[in-house]
């Protein structure tokens, strides 16, 4: 399977703080990949490095098989919708389309106009006067009309109301259904990602905690509930992600390839949101040792 985004030991440092560290990922093509983590975890940094807006301090990154923003032809293969969906306030919607048509070969003008028409955006309206949701839709249209192989979105729905959020994701998913489009989308709201993503990367404290297909992650992560047993160790094929105890009861979140055989545990499934939360609030020493991708 070809990888649409490959990083090897990628890191970015601003003065003294590492915004991203030891990031090694292989994101497969043809998927909708969610990049999730708390604020300040390094999501924007990773995406900025992938689009060539930032330069790495260590390691390297490749998108669609080449370093980002290498030349005009390569730039045409990767689309980007930045955080806060910037647009030229003085230009109208139609002029933004013209901008895209002039600056991109392979621009799908017909499709872009149709999409904006369906959304009810007035072509003569200045971008500065659009609502947040409308501007996000404009930015998405500009990103899709370029016909990229990979579309990267940095927290596109963070500041949108629920209806605008749903409409944005509908347009995005429709575009994915229409053609072979890979999407990498970051968010700190996990419930959005659950319906939209089939591949997930969890980023906490500037490091990748876990990455893999959503189905694999769901199948291999379990919640174990049972009586508290001091000095408990887990079998070697199970890894502890998160634990919490009362005086009588222990609740663990573990990742295991095989079945859980210990009869004392009641094994339950985890929703994706709970899984991500377990990684986000796991013990600190776990966070320092990143897990490899689940295949």
């Amino acid at each position: 399977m070809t990888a649409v985004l490959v990083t090897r030991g990628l890191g970015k440092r601003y003065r003294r703080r590492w915004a991203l560290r030891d990031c090694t990922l292989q994101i497969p093509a043809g998927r909708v990949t969610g990049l999730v983590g708390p604020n300040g975890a390094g999501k924007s940094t990773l995406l900025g490095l992938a689009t060539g807006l930032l330069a790495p301090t260590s390691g390297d990154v490749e998108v669609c098989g080449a370093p980002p923003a290498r030349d005009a032809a390569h730039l045409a293969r990767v689309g980007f919708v930045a955080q806060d969906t910037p647009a030229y306030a003085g230009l109208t919607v139609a002029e933004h389309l013209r901008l895209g048509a002039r600056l991109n070969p392979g621009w799908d003008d017909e499709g872009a106009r149709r999409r904006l028409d369906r959304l009810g955006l007035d072509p003569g309206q200045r971008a500065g006067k659009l609502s947040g949701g409308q501007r996000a839709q404009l930015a998405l249209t500009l990103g899709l009309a370029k016909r990229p192989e990979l579309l990267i979105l940095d927290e596109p729905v963070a500041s949108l109301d629920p209806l605008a959020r749903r409409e944005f994701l509908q347009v995005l998913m429709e575009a994915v259904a229409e053609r072979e489009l890979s999407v990498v989308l970051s968010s700190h709201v996990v419930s959005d990602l659950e319906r939209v993503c089939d591949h997930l990367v969890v980023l906490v404290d500037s490091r990748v905690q876990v990455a893999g297909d959503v189905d694999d992650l769901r199948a291999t992560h379990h919640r174990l509930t049972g009586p508290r047993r001091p000095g408990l160790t887990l079998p070697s094929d199970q890894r502890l992600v998160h634990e919490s105890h009362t005086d009588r009861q222990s609740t663990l979140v573990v990742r295991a390839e095989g079945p859980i055989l210990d009869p004392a545990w009641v094994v339950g499934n985890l929703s994706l949101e709970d899984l991500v939360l377990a990684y986000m609030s796991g013990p600190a020493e776990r966070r320092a040792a990143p897990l490899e991708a689940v295949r």
Partner: protein
Amino acid sequence: MIEFSLDGQSGVSPYLQVVQQVRQALRLGLLREGDQLPTVKEVVAALAINPNTVLKAYRELERDGLVAARPGVGTFVTRTLADASLAAHEPLRRELERWLAKARRAGLDDESIRALFATAFRSGREVA
């Protein structure tokens, strides 16, 4: 044509929900033989879910022999579940009703009945 909905809080994965909703519709007679299921694009546009989810659900239904995909046209129902569940399992349903009456006479409330059932269901699954 049926319409799908997605319950984000249920803990059931989206593709399973689609499968369940198709089976439910077949059981209730909302979908009959020859009916076309909504296209992947239509479902995706309505629900904002991953197209692969829908494809996976439709493939599983196809494996179960309930639907068949015709390339370039759509996915169509080949078999309903209405007869199978209602008629053939009538004795099972009556037996279940009798057990429930027994449990209530023994003094169990709804919660206990459900817990009892869940334990038996799980252990029964592991044995099978």
